[in-house]
């Protein structure tokens, strides 16, 4: 066991680091900037990366990549994470949507869309979840009806990240309600600025608005915007979801180091809170979990560098990190005692980072697969346990019982 790069990996890491040092934008305080201002910086950085082929690295050269190995991609991400560059705007588009377009669109469509997306000129979103179809996304209701060479779309999507700044999206809709739910779906690409598309921000329990609802009212699109065959939408969607980027790195909020600092500077009934036995036990548990996750990623990297494909076992990451964030944030507030209720960033310790993460953590436990769905994935796809009894497999969608 060792943590060293192979000679080739080490050489690539130096190449990446050298390039980043020469090209990464200077650190900017984005706290006081508006989202459009930050987006402008992000687009500029994406264009620089695309020019040097440090984005979409595993794609073929003809599509803007460099035919890199997954481990090279991880090495780039590790090195880039040491720089304070704008990130997050292109992950869903380039990680999930555009690969779907690449897999199912005709050459003309690919020619039109791939290059601008790689350069960050056009951003894509994924329109799958609906108010009545979350974990059970195949239960979606947004309806597309054929009208000559066109399709007319009505319905509503929800939890669409970035819909308000996205240019295009991939849209999963129901084209046939008379067959069982998985068989009546079809995928399309759409122009987010087209008439009939309305984006409304969702006011989250955390106070912010990172996601949107997207309403479709008689949106008319041509059949040439279809991705895959009519009725094959579920198969296409699985390709999208399989392309979900391997999560490497990814700190989501304050961790054991921050709460340790808080404890050191907080006075409790028996002195410094860091001297409290109960707190120290929890601190040890958080450290062991966080280190365990970090080291599990190293094991994934080992599999990658041996040419293996990591499987669904990476699902454990979010279960642990989201729950720890919630638990740790709550403990931090309790450490602050009565003061813990204060969220004023000018007054609360660490600019209220713990209070904010307490309000964000519930979302993290749900987004991208709830705790419960992730445990099902581990049980079924890693451990090989049988799927649940299904009452919806052979029932026409229109005959399925519905609640809220």
């Amino acid at each position, binding site marked *: *066991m*060792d*943590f*060293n*790069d*192979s000679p080739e*990996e080490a050489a690539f890491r130096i190449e990446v680091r050298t390039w980043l040092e020469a090209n990464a934008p200077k650190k900017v305080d984005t706290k006081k900037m508006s989202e459009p201002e930050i987006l402008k910086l992000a687009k500029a950085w994406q264009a620089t990366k695309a020019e040097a082929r440090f984005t979409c690295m595993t794609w073929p050269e003809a599509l803007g990549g460099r035919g890199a190995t997954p*481990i090279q991609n991880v090495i780039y991400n590790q090195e880039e994470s040491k720089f304070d560059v704008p990130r997050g705007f292109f992950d869903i588009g380039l990680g999930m949507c555009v690969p779907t377009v690449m897999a199912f669109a005709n050459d003309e469509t690919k020619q039109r869309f791939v290059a601008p997306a790689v350069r960050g000129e056009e951003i894509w979103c994924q329109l799958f979840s609906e108010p009545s179809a979350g974990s059970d996304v195949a239960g979606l209701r947004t309806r597309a009806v054929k009208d000559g060479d066109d399709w007319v779309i009505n319905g509503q999507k929800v939890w669409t990240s970035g819909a308000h700044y996205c240019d295009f999206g991939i849209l999963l809709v129901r084209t046939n309600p008379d067959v069982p739910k998985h068989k009546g779906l079809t995928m399309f690409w759409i122009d987010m600025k087209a008439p009939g598309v309305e984006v409304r921000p969702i006011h989250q329990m955390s106070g912010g608005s990172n996601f949107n609802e997207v309403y479709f009212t008689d949106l008319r699109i041509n059949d040439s915007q279809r991705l895959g065959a009519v009725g094959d939408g579920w198969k296409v969607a699985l390709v999208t979801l399989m392309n979900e980027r391997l999560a490497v790195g990814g700190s989501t909020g304050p961790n*054991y180091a921050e709460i*340790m600092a808080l404890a050191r500077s907080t006075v409790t009934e028996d002195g410094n809170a*860091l001297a409290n*036995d109960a707190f*120290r*036990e929890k*601190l*040890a*548990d958080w*450290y*062991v*979990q966080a*280190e*365990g*996750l*970090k*080291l*599990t990623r*190293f*094991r994934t*990297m*080992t*599999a990658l*560098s041996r040419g293996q494909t990591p499987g669904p*076992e990476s699902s*454990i990451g979010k*279960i*642990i990190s989201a729950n720890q964030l919630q638990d740790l944030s709550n403990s931090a507030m309790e450490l602050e005692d009565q003061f813990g209720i204060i969220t004023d960033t000018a007054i609360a310790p660490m600019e209220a980072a713990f209070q904010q993460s307490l309000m964000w953590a519930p979302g993290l436990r749900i987004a991208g697969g709830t705790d*419960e769905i*992730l*445990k*099902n994935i*581990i*049980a*079924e796809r*890693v*451990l*090989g*346990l*049988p*799927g*649940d*009894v299904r009452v919806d497999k052979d029932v026409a969608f229109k005959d399925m019982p519905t609640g809220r």
Partner: protein
Amino acid sequence: MNFDYSDDQKFLKNEARKFLDGNCTSAHVRKVLDNADLSYDADLWKGVGAQGWLGAAIPEEHGGLGLGRVELCAIAEELGRACAPIPFASTVYFLAEALMLAGSDAQKAKWLPKIAAGELIGAFATSEGPGVVNAANLQANVVGGKLTGVKIPVTDGDIADLAVVLANEGGKPGLFLVELAGAGVTRETLKTLDPTRSVAKISFSGAAAERLGDAGEGFALTEAVFDRAAVLLAFEQLGGSDRCLEMAKDYAMDRYAFGRTIAGYQAIKHKLADMYVKNELARSNAYFGAWALNVGAAELPIAAAAARVASSEAFWFASKENVQTHGGMGFTWAVDCHLYYRRSRQLALVAGAPKVWKERLVQQLERRNAA
């Protein structure tokens, strides 16, 4: 990046599993469990010695195989999986590691070849009663090379030939080598939660004792030996908790209730997924411990603590939920669940309880922060 066993290590591990599949079945474990007069499986012990495992990490100049600690970890994982009823940990993780850490050239030359050859069983004796032994309550005392005091519990103390004993000498704590067959040693086998691992009370009254390591370093050396043992024990725990997950899965797949296999119920699936998550986090922490132990990294104390905390938690959870998954059958003597439930407690306590290790971990974090 290579954060996994190498192909050679995997081969060794696989060979170990094959050997134990034949020589350490549940029947072998139960022979020791069910016979109060039997402290270990002597045939298995001989077999393990013949495989060379006892000297796996002992240098060739002292009769060992001179492999790395990672190879020893691979063997430990398989021993834990098989719930092996032998004094392997006491002899290899504690005694041999203590000798390699603190022994003089003469001490190493005298004892390590005997360990490697399977001619000697070891023990490590620190505890004197409930709670943690410390400078204020340590009673065992050496005067003029003669040890007096009582050590309880001493794992494998009833069958060991040579013990490392923590005791004061001239007011300074030290470690001492004591040959247990000599005069002034009285031993009594104790009843414990895990009868597949033997435990004794040893009373010393003027037993010959030879210092191991420097005077005054008794507690520091004990911690250093525990750091090494903790990593190796973590792999036994990992082997045990992975086995519990397998048992729970196999049983659930074959058990039918309400017209279908219980493995399809989310209550069972989520329980098993929780086991898997804990086992994987423990494995990653244990691997880091193996790396730190193998290269003698400065991170060893924190890596060992994290490995011990994670593996103790994983094995406890897996062993108790394995019983639960088996339902009423899991509560019977006949089904093997309780072997692991017992062993999980034995392994969690033998090098100090997880609570103590959590405290040590936080102290390491504080040190790192101060640096």
